[in-house]
């Protein structure tokens, strides 16, 4: 059953070829079998999953179905889940049981999806390898000595190993697309504001966006359809109507124009990955797309801009973890300042501390103009480059990451090398654009991801391009050995 896509399982459930309880039990059994090794889940919600599945079966029996009714999925542990531990991968929230559901969680539950559990992630989503998690590293199902990418590493590994049918994730600088690429699945980050951030633990509020990790673009469209849309609880959620992604995706192919950022193929890109991307572009050409070179003049500055803007916003967002209302609290301290310092010193891991201190530095008196304001100006230049490119082409296509999955421990001592992993993905976050990574080949036995970036609110076009690509290829059907 687990070899099927969400769309296929949805048909099976509707036709009563399988029940949601059977399906949920099957995935729970697969989690038991494989997750000791992978460590992709922080919490498994067995009992409530089976209750939700039984309720879904009743709905199906009554004929009240949506495409997600009865589908077992996993949520990144950054989304608050009512009455379920929500850790954000941190010791700080090891004892936090959320008193409410994030909008994403509530909407998917309403659509009838079954939550299998909460997936592992880099602490507060700060990382590109899932190694900063308080709950330990996640292993890449394609090679267990390699990282699955991050920060949505648990979601990516779980979907790649087919121990969850689909999963949610969040993407601040590449945290959906990068792990999707390294784990050989489809990862979709919508336009900034397309999905409500209510109940999604904040990292960098002008960049954070929720999205999907799935086997196929078709599955991503089904999941996003239920997640997207306005929310009175998030003042940055976009009021624009949500189009029917499935219908748009299957509509007849129209000639599109694809821009290839030539500077994405410079020295830093792994040779075999470059070949796979070029072959992917040839598929689009065969489909009738026009391919053009474009130049994003300031894109090489996206990593430095990001490492000013994101830590600045994080240092402010993470001020709420003070040991008073929830979370870890230092014991036996009488002085208030010392109490805060020890609480936070004990509760946060080293990468989170680095980012808070970086953010504090760039926002501090005397440095604000030189760093934060300057970064916001360069962010505008990067955004203008995208706008100029999109005046000429419909979609940008290039690599998702410079290399396939790297070794566990390989980059942990060098934050700069780790940060450069997101060099191709950060631009879309800075400009608020939708992006998707789809499997397009292998390099040294490890999956390679191809990234498509679209115009603001043009998710439908990205889904369609990815869907047509996946009709022509079978990279997305490849399953790591031992998980077939």
């Amino acid at each position, binding site marked *: 059953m687990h070899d099927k896509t969400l769309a296929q399982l949805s048909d099976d459930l509707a036709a009563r070829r399988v029940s949601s309880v059977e399906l949920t039990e099957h995935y729970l059994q697969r989690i038991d079998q494989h997750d000791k090794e992978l460590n992709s889940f922080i919490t498994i919600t067995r009992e409530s999953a089976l209750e939700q599945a039984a309720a879904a079966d009743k709905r199906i029996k009554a004929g009240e179905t949506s495409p997600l009714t009865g589908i077992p999925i996993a949520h990144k542990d950054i989304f608050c889940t009512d009455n379920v531990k929500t850790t954000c991968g941190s010791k700080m929230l090891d004892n936090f*049981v959320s*008193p409410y559901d994030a909008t994403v969680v509530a909407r998917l539950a309403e659509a009838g999806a079954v939550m299998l559990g909460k997936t592992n992630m880099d602490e507060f989503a700060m990382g590109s390898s899932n190694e900063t998690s308080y709950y330990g590293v996640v292993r890449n199902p394609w090679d267990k000595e390699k990282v699955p990418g991050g920060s949505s590493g648990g979601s990516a590994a779980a979907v790649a190993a087919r121990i969850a049918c689909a999963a949610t994730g969040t993407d601040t600088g590449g945290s959906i697309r990068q792990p999707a690429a390294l784990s050989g699945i489809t990862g979709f980050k919508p336009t*900034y*504001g397309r999905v409500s951030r209510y109940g999604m633990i904040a990292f960098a509020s*002008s960049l954070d966006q929720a999205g999907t990790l799935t086997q196929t673009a078709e599955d991503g469209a089904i999941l996003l359809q239920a997640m997207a849309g306005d929310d*009175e609880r998030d003042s*940055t959620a*976009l*009021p624009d109507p949500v189009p029917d992604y499935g219908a748009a995706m299957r509509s007849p192919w129209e000639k599109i124009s694809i821009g290839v950022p030539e500077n994405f193929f410079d020295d830093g890109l792994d040779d075999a990955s470059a070949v796979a991307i070029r072959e992917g572009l040839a598929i689009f050409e065969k489909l009738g797309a026009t391919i053009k070179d474009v130049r994003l003049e300031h894109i090489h*500055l996206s990593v*430095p*801009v990001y*490492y000013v803007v994101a830590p600045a916003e994080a*240092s402010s967002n993470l*001020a709420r973890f*003070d*040991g*008073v*209302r*929830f*979370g*870890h*609290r230092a014991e036996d301290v*009488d*002085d*208030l300042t010392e*109490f*805060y*310092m*020890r609480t*936070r*010193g004990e509760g*946060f891991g*080293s990468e989170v*501390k*680095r980012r*808070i*201190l*970086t*953010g*504090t*530095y760039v926002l*501090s008196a005397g440095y604000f103009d*030189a*760093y934060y*304001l*300057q*970064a*916001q*100006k*360069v962010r*505008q*230049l990067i*955004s203008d480059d995208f706008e100029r490119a999109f005046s000429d082409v419909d979609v940008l296509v290039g690599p998702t990451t410079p290399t396939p999955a790297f070794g566990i421990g390989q980059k942990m001592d060098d*934050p*700069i090398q780790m940060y450069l992993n997101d060099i191709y993905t950060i631009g879309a*976050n*800075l*400009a*608020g654009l939708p992006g998707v990574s789809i499997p397009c080949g292998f390099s040294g036995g490890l999956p390679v991801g191809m990234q498509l970036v679209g115009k603001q609110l043009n998710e439908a076009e990205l889904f369609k391009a990815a869907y047509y690509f996946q009709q022509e290829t079978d990279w997305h059907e490849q399953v790591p050995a031992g998980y077939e």
Partner: protein
Amino acid sequence: MSLDREDIDKLCVLARLKITDEEMADVGSKLSDIVELVDELQAVDTASVIPMAHPLDREQRLRPDAVTETDDHERIQKNAPQVEKALYLVPKVIE
């Protein structure tokens, strides 16, 4: 620019974040690397650019200033480390 021990001590107080002596050397060198990375921005000519605070050019929506949530403190305070009579306990603030 590289950060010395004094700079980091000052940042730690501003950020209310304790760094242990063992962590200090590592934090110092890595933070200096990060500052060096972001220093690349200094060379860019941005004289005529307006800073971009947000990716979408939209108006922030407002709502009436009305009470919509009911009192639910008992449930919410279940997560609080120390509570007495529905009040959060903290170390002494005023002598």
